[in-house]
């Protein structure tokens, strides 16, 4: 077969030339999406670069739509889409304060598919923030950062990596925000970096480091640009690889451990061969998950085609939805950045608005004395939150039976607290995004904001 990617066209009923009779001899150097045997299925994983990070077999339960909602795959698909849509934008965008704005105007108006590309990039970026957050919520509510029955499991560390990946996602989105060099960009970054400046003692220096000076100008733009296109995606890619690797080291998704626990006392039938039952990369000589779980054939399926099919469906579905949304949601481009005119209200990006809201609410005026909330709302609170998120796997004392189970009884209290926290953040985000109008006054949805003046 000269074209391996066409091999799925082959009918499984056809006799292939060169099928080996001897075990251990590969029937052909290529692979198939429609394997006829476990061996062919394993070959597809082993001989394909793109698939080699997957295990040959996965537990059926971990593929269920209802367990994970495939949010991690969705995040990865969005990251892929962001790289794909960002690459052509790299050729079109000019990171200079004189030309950035006009290069975006050109992308919007005259570049073929330019407006759509930019919208795909923007919609995917916002969607990635949402999906990554939902992924974190899913992992928390299923107790998936907990270790089950496998040896050498370090799921708590994968959770920590995940938290950093979320932070990188937010930073990626935030650095991209500045690039169009319009009023929206300039003032969102002003708000963001001023919050950093509120850290006691080192705040002003941190801000200076972030923006490359004391005012947001060309040095800021080039810093954010390089962070956005090289440093942060590189870091996220590296963490992504590590995240994936840890999943394999930990014996798959946490729900696999639940299955293993359920099957523990059942007697496993004799297994004829274990050639392809590599659930994880072995640590020393012991398989990662106990043989009882692995050997029950009805709980395990081949990664090719079952895992790959769904991963492809999720990826293609994500791309289709983002692409359709991008044709309806035009990306905004406000007036060119103007340090002399502050838009009223000046807002941070939406995913930081709950923080901006807290900054406002913790700013207390007593007579002429003002306690600035930027430090509390902008530094202390998110700092505490991230610290708690990172430490939570060690604080959580629930039994290992709660691993990979939605809303386990033993974790009822912490799940409730977590959901309340999420609702709190959602509410503040809503207030900050929709209800805050000029002078940061509250406007109900039925109230009309004052008219924004124009030149003529």
């Amino acid at each position: 077969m000269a074209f391996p990617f066409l091999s799925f066209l082959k009918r499984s009923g056809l006799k292939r030339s060169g099928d080996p009779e001897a075990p251990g001899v590969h029937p052909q150097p290529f692979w198939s999406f429609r394997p006829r045997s476990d061996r062919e299925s394993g070959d597809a994983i082993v001989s394909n670069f793109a698939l080699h990070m997957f295990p040959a077999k996965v537990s059926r339960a971990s593929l269920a739509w209802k367990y994970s909602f495939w949010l991690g795959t969705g995040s990865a698909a969005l990251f892929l889409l962001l790289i794909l849509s960002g690459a052509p934008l790299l050729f079109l965008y000019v990171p200079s304060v004189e030309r950035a704005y006009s290069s975006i105007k050109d992308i919007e108006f005259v570049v073929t598919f330019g407006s759509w590309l930019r919208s795909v990039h923007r919609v995917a970026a916002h969607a990635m923030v949402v999906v990554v957050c939902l992924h974190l919520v899913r992992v928390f509510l299923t107790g998936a950062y907990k270790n089950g029955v496998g040896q050498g499991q370090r799921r708590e560390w994968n959770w920590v990596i995940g938290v950093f990946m979320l932070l990188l996602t937010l930073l990626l989105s935030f650095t991209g925000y500045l690039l169009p060099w319009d009023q929206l960009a300039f003032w969102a970054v002003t708000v963001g970096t001023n919050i950093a400046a509120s850290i006691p003692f080192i705040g002003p220096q941190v801000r200076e480091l972030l923006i490359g000076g004391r005012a947001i100008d060309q040095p800021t733009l080039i810093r954010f640009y390089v962070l956005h296109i090289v440093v942060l995606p590189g870091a996220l890619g590296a963490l992504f690889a590590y995240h994936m690797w840890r999943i394999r080291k930990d014996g798959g998704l946490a729900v696999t451990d639940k299955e293993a626990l359920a099957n523990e006392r059942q007697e496993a039938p004799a297994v004829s061969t274990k050639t392809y039952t590599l659930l994880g990369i072995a640590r020393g000589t012991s398989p990662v998950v106990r043989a009882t779980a692995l050997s029950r054939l009805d709980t395990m399926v081949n990664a090719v085609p079952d895992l790959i099919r769904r991963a492809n469906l999720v990826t293609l579905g994500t791309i289709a939805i983002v692409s359709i949304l991008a044709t309806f949601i035009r990306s905004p481009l406000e007036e060119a950045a103007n340090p002399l005119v502050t838009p009223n209200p000046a807002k941070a990006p939406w995913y930081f608005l709950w923080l901006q809201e807290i900054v406002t609410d913790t700013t207390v005026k007593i007579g002429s004395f003002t306690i600035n909330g930027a430090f509390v709302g902008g530094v202390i609170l998110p700092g505490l939150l991230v610290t708690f998120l990172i430490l939570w796997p060690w604080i959580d004392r629930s039994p290992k039976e709660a691993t990979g189970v939605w809303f386990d009884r033993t974790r009822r209290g912490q799940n409730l607290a977590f959901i309340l926290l999420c609702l709190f953040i959602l509410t503040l985000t809503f207030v900050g995004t929709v209800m805050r109008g000029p002078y940061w006054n509250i406007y109900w949805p039925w109230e009309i904001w004052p008219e924004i003046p124009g030149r003529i």
Partner: protein
Amino acid sequence: MEKRTNSPYPRIDRPVLAIVGVLLVISTVLFARNDREHEWRWYQTEFKRLVAEKYGQDKAKTVPSGLQQIWIPSMAKADRCVTCHQALGWKGFETADEPFRTHPQDILKSHPPETFGCTSCHGGQGWAIDAGPAHGPIEHWNEPLLGKQLGSEYSLVDDKAALMQMNCNVCHRYERETKGAEAINRAKQLVNEKGCRGCHVVNGRGGTIGPDLTYVGDKEAEQYEYGRLSGQKTSFAWHVAHFKDPRALVTETVMPNFNFSSKDAQSLAMLALSWKKSPVPAAFIPGVPLSEPQTEQEKADEERMKTGPGGWFVKTGCFVCHSISALGVKSPAQIGPDLSTAVEDVQSRFGRTLDDFLREPTGTMAVVLSRQIILSPEEKAVAIGKLREAYAEHEKQKASAAKADKSAAPVAARH
């Protein structure tokens, strides 16, 4: 040969695959269509047809296709207006509907589009290729097309297309008169007649009571106070209302109400907004001095007044607002009352003697005498002496005039 472990295809995956497939097709159709569908394609086909009708197929073939633009690096402008407005230089479409109309050719001789572009005169968003964003008004683009439509929205008096003259004046700001810019010319005339420079610096010359207006056109729309303005909230509307009645918008202002007509207020608002520090290449500025010197006549008049009996009032600057007719001083603005009768007038207006009032002035004069014309007590004494002289002169002139009247019309007087 070993068999594959049985794993039946989950039933739900088929509809999911079907949905994803349909979504992918929809998305492809949508973005391809969105990118393709622009009104300029239709306008270009239509213009080709019009040219073919008039001049034949061969000529029609010379009409360019695809996106067109005029790129002016010196102003960082890419004006894509010519993508639809293709008739720009074609003869024979002078009466056609837009966008197929020939541009008036006279003005293009001195302002070739390949040098000036379109938006430097007409306004609008040159980057855009659809009428909506190109013409405006549209959110986030502060320079809409300065055409009749916008003029009608502002109920311009007489010439609805006059707004465009603002852009003429970006380059022609130092000219006394610019051909074709009647509203701006009228406004410039008013600036001199009303003595705006009494209080304001314009182009480097004038008083300091009011703000410097040289680059007032650069003031951002957000920086005006609209609290007392009804109707449109724009810089232009603000200026029109402010020229009509300054105190209605800024209660504490000392700017007098000149009772400008709507037309004059609109012209002045255009002039004010045209005073921008625009990055116009030097080559675009017409060959006039880059300042606004007084004319010979104005200089001669001032010189004559300076050396006359009222010279003191000219040198100190009182004459900017006040005439002292008895001493032959005529104010160009005549905002304040004639000072010939000040001795009597101050008493009747303020209930105070002239000496007392000058020592501690109130109202507008308090502002003027504290900020722009600062007089020492000795100078004030001189002023009082001069004003007494003027009053005496005034009385004398009145008496002689009365005498002349009596002798000229004895019959009428007896009746």
